[in-house]
């Protein structure tokens, strides 16, 4: 353990522990907590207490149960976006980096286009037209997140493809699939993984932003929508309600994004030291 910490893994382990603790806290809320995240189980705007640890919202629905469902909804969306981003960005990046020439030029152009487009405004416009479908939100966020991953993956692939053992394999007649699978994948995978992990936190934030703006399923128990509903309650800042109805999803969102973004950053430093 001491060696690991000296080697730079300590903060990563602490962050992983934090994420695990959050997951456990919300897993209890989702699996063992007696209150429903969708059905009223208490009085309207009940203050935190034994029956409702984090109180209830205006409809009398338990906040802790909603937060717990929101955590898994957000994390699953973030992970789906991360996986999709890894597949698209990693795949196109490896293709461009390995093939070069016209393929690389085409992928580079697409990367530049997607990097140049301001993401949130475009997501808001597209979300306004098609956004009330969760799968579509995942697709939209992934579509605007793969470019940086592809760019880094292409650079790493190009670098790896020029190594002596890869050249040797090619001169001995190894085909592209063999080289990609056996020589390049191991080198490129950490880049893709770190890039995809970075997208998880970003996707959670973007989905919350879209939900806050009313561009998601209006009755879903997402954190963005909880913040939206609470902050639009007239005069909430002149009452005590904000302390549990608004502060709880804001804190949950901040903690989750903080852990995932710091974890991605630490892993990037640790795994890609000197590479990128």
């Amino acid at each position, binding site marked *: 353990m001491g060696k690991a910490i000296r080697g730079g893994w300590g903060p990563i382990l602490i962050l992983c522990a934090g994420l695990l603790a959050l997951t456990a806290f919300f897993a209890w809320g989702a699996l063992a907590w007696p209150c429903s995240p969708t*059905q009223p189980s208490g009085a309207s705007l009940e203050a935190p207490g034994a029956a409702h640890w984090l109180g209830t919202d*205006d409809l009398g629905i338990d906040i802790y149960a909603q937060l717990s469902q929101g955590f898994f909804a957000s994390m699953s969306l973030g992970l789906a976006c991360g996986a999709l981003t890894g597949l698209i960005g990693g795949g196109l990046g490896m293709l461009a980096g390995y093939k070069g020439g016209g393929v690389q030029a085409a992928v580079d152009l697409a990367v530049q286009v997607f990097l140049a487009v301001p993401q949130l405004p475009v997501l808001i416009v597209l979300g306004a*037209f098609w956004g*009330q479908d969760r799968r579509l939100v995942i697709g939209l966020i992934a579509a605007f997140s793969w470019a940086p991953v592809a760019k880094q993956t292409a650079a790493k692939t190009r670098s790896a493809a020029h190594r002596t053992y890869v050249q040797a394999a090619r001169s001995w007649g190894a085909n592209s699939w063999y080289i990609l699978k056996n020589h390049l994948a191991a080198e490129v995978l950490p880049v893709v993984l770190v890039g995809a992990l970075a997208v998880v936190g970003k996707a959670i934030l973007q989905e919350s932003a879209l939900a806050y703006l009313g561009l998601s399923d*209006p009755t879903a128990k997402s954190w963005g929508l909880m913040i939206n509903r609470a902050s639009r309650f007239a*005069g909430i*800042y002149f009452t005590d309600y904000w302390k549990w109805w608004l502060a709880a999803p804001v804190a949950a969102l901040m903690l989750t994004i903080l852990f995932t973004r710091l974890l991605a950053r630490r892993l990037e430093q640790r795994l890609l030291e000197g590479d990128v």
Partner: protein
Amino acid sequence: MKFVSRLFSAAAALLILASLAAGCFAAPAASAGESRPDGQVEVLRLEGGTDWGAPTPFQCQSRGPGTAKMELVYASLLEKDETGDIGWLAESWTVDGKDYTFTLRQGAAFQDGEPLTADDVAFTIDYYNAHPPVSNPLAAGTDACILEGYTVVDERTITLTVKAPDGDTLTSLGSFEILPRHVWESVEDPYTYTGEGWLTGSGAWACTAYDGPTGSYEFTAVNDFCAGTQAAARIQFVPASDALLAFENGEIDITGVPADLLDRYRADESLGFVEKADDTGYKLLINFDECPEFLDIALRQAVYAALDRQAVVDKVFRGAGSVGSAGYVPRSSLYYSPDCVEYPYDPEAARAVLADKNLSVTLLAADSGSDVAIAELIQLDLEAAGVAVTVESYDSATRDSMVNGGDYQFALVGNGGWGNNPPTYLRTIFSDVSKNQGGNPHSMGPIGYENAEITALAEGQRTETDFEARKAMFQQLQVLISREIPLIVIANQSSYSMYRKDCYDGWMKTYAYQQAEQNRLSYMLR
């Protein structure tokens, strides 16, 4: 359709911005440096932040805040005060059978200084027949137009001849906004026009700034307005992310009071309040063309039984309101009929009827106000009764457009004005010949449902001029509506507006409309 509508809105916003840049607004008639009439305040600030359209009769949004801004810029022949109709551009009027003769005030003029004559009134009628305005009390351009013709008697006098006079005719004739002929006679498409003079109105206020994307408006008092003196030199609608915070910070002068905080503010004697009893209401529309199974009245009765409407009052309105009468007119109205059929919350009875029907509906709602919370409660109740419900929410204008276009299965529609007196909206919502004409929420009735008895009563009450007889007809109509259930009435919300008395104390309700911030006379010295 939705895409085209949104595209059009975006294009209109760009055009308006371009017009702003080109300085197309009418010049302010009063400047800050000028001395003001006694009692006039420098500026009144209200909550903005929503684009209610450009304040012209053709481009404003159909809902109250949109038409109210347009009515500041444009004037009609008559206005309403606390007790009845009063002269506005017209100083007097006479009624002789089907002929209504109006005499314009001496000195009536448009905001560019051109005189306002009977010829402009006649032109306005013709122009509205060719291009119906958003708010259309004459029903111009439709088969239901109340006018048969007109005669220009002299420069200040015009006689309007109606097809059939009734209890509402004078009010309707007095409510259409007068256009300047010299501006509009060469305009072919008023719905997109933003050229020279597009905001030159006939009203007490010139629109001196309008920015749609931020929902900002400024209106400046017009000098020597013929019908009175304005109570403020300027009216501004300023964006506010939280209206109550803005009021506390002195950024706006009037705002709504949340029910939870009413007692707290009531204790402050420097504040004045305008009560709007049961004035906002929510109804659940069923598109029977899309959901023909609900033509079976047993299913509509079961929907009523499935809904815990008291929960809407308690949880969403925070207790400030009442469960809606199935006869539509609020329980606090003078016209309310206590004989309406009541539908108490009975989830077991609802489930017994609905559970085995395998029903699935999409519920359209607006994404603003309390709509989503109410939609969620409806969803929970209907799902408990065995009906699968998917809620879709859009901005209010898109929701209205979809409702009017019949692009929905179930739709939740909320609006103010339920406390109107008399409840003439019963005709525009429930009459098969008058409903769904235009984008006003009081014209949004059920689609695919017809009822000759309701239509006869709803149309027939217009021709009854005896108050008690007309009231009896309204009450009979409500009982019929409550029995036949063309739509589901959810609940009525009561609210208060709060203002600083030392800043301005002239907010008023008319005999027909409780929304003080939307009444023209609220902004006049009286």
